[in-house]
């Protein structure tokens, strides 16, 4: 048979491509649930590491099923807010609904465009609120989770991750525990520009809303700084001073309402 015939070539290529596509589609649909479960457990590990539920290496040593259980045991409330700081949706507290990292990218775009965002807030036991951050590092996206104490401005813990930062340099944001531990006890200055800083010589200045950037990883540090501030700005109306006054106002309103009732 002449394998160099035009008709044969076209049909042959088409058949090969269709067969390969079928195999890949079949495998993807079979493995999809397992992959999603892995991605979800990974997100939960990072959030719970930030919230200080367990030490990071213990979380990474745990099986996926145990991680889901630990999350279910520790989460109190999960909801989404808009850029105005108002709640605009509930995230099911059950272990099934988690905002994966892949969902942070469109939210990041929404923040930058000042559009309709649904930003997740996870409230763990003892009132620890965990919020995500997302931005561009040197080679790819960087993201992370910041845990806030019940006072809404002291940082209880943090966890950062990245897709492809340089190992040994930018990758330290994830690999080196000392970097994320530096965030603990620092504060987010809601309403200030910038609300938080990654910069040089922080220890000398004693600033409470700043952390030393990583030497040799200028671009990753800059990207992370940008990510932190973009997302803190987006959450400002929810956690910041404005939110505090809104709460007072509501409180006053309800009190007057009560007074009226009494009369």
């Amino acid at each position, binding site marked *: 048979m002449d394998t160099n015939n035009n008709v044969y070539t076209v049909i*042959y290529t088409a058949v090969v491509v269709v067969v*390969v596509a079928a*195999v890949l589609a079949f495998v993807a649909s079979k493995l999809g649930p*397992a992959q999603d479960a*892995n991605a979800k457990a990974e997100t939960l590990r990072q959030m719970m590491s930030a919230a200080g539920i367990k030490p990071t290496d213990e979380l*990474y040593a745990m099986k996926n099923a145990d991680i889901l259980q630990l999350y279910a045991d520790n989460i109190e409330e999960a909801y989404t807010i808009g850029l105005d700081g108002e709640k605009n949706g509930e995230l099911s507290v059950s272990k099934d609904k988690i905002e994966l990292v892949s969902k942070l990218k469109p939210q990041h775009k929404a923040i930058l465009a000042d559009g309709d965002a649904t930003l997740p807030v996870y409230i763990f036991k003892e009132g620890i609120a965990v919020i995500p951050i997302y931005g561009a590092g040197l080679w790819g996206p960087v993201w992370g989770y910041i845990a806030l104490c019940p006072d809404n401005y002291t940082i209880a813990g943090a966890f950062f991750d990245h897709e492809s930062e340089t190992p*040994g340099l930018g990758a330290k944001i994830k690999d080196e525990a000392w970097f994320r531990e530096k965030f603990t006890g620092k504060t987010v200055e809601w309403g200030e520009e910038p609300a938080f800083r990654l910069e040089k010589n922080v220890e000398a200045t004693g600033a409470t809303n700043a952390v030393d950037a990583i030497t040799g990883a200028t671009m990753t540090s800059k990207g992370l700084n940008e990510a932190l501030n973009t997302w803190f700005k987006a959450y400002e109306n929810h956690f910041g001073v404005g939110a505090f006054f809104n709460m007072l106002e509501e409180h006053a309103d309800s009190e007057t309402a009560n007074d009226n009732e009494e009369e």
Partner: protein
Amino acid sequence: MAQKLKETILNPVLKGNPITVLVLGICSALAVTVQLKGALVMALSVIAVTGLSSLVCSLLRNTIPNRVRIIVQLVVVAMMVILVDQILKAGEGTYAIDKQLSVYIGLIITNCIVMGRIEAFALGNKPIPSLLDGLANGVGYGLILVIVAFFRELLGSGTLFGFQVLPAAYVPNNLVILPPFALILIGCIIWVHRALDKDLQEN
């Protein structure tokens, strides 16, 4: 026959090593050799891809239209790579390593060793020898990867497989972590290899 099979298996690991002798597949050898664990998974992935791609292409060798053979090979290789990537992502234990290797698993498609072996061997040989040739070339590649990663992790982080082996007083060398050092190291391996094997020396 047995002699020829032995040759097929041993040659890619020693005299015809894809990295040190043919100098193919260098890019990924520079990129994924920072840690041993990653290098090992990468090596196993490449072994699987080279072996299976060679096997499939050898099975198809008499039917592939000559004018589009590179395209057909590429489709087969791409399928194998995506399968490996999907499987790594689905395994509970391998998910973290797949994340760490990020794009480099996908880039196995462009690894010259895979296409090189299909073109040079699988299209002209029976399936079983082709499978062995593919596997052996993957092993030859993986061997160098693991050697390079051993030194880079030891000197660059003071650890092996993530366990601290050098005393805490050792200051990790940042140059070792960067890709240029891998190139220097591969250069050294080629030097040692050639010094030991007289057949590889040029006059």
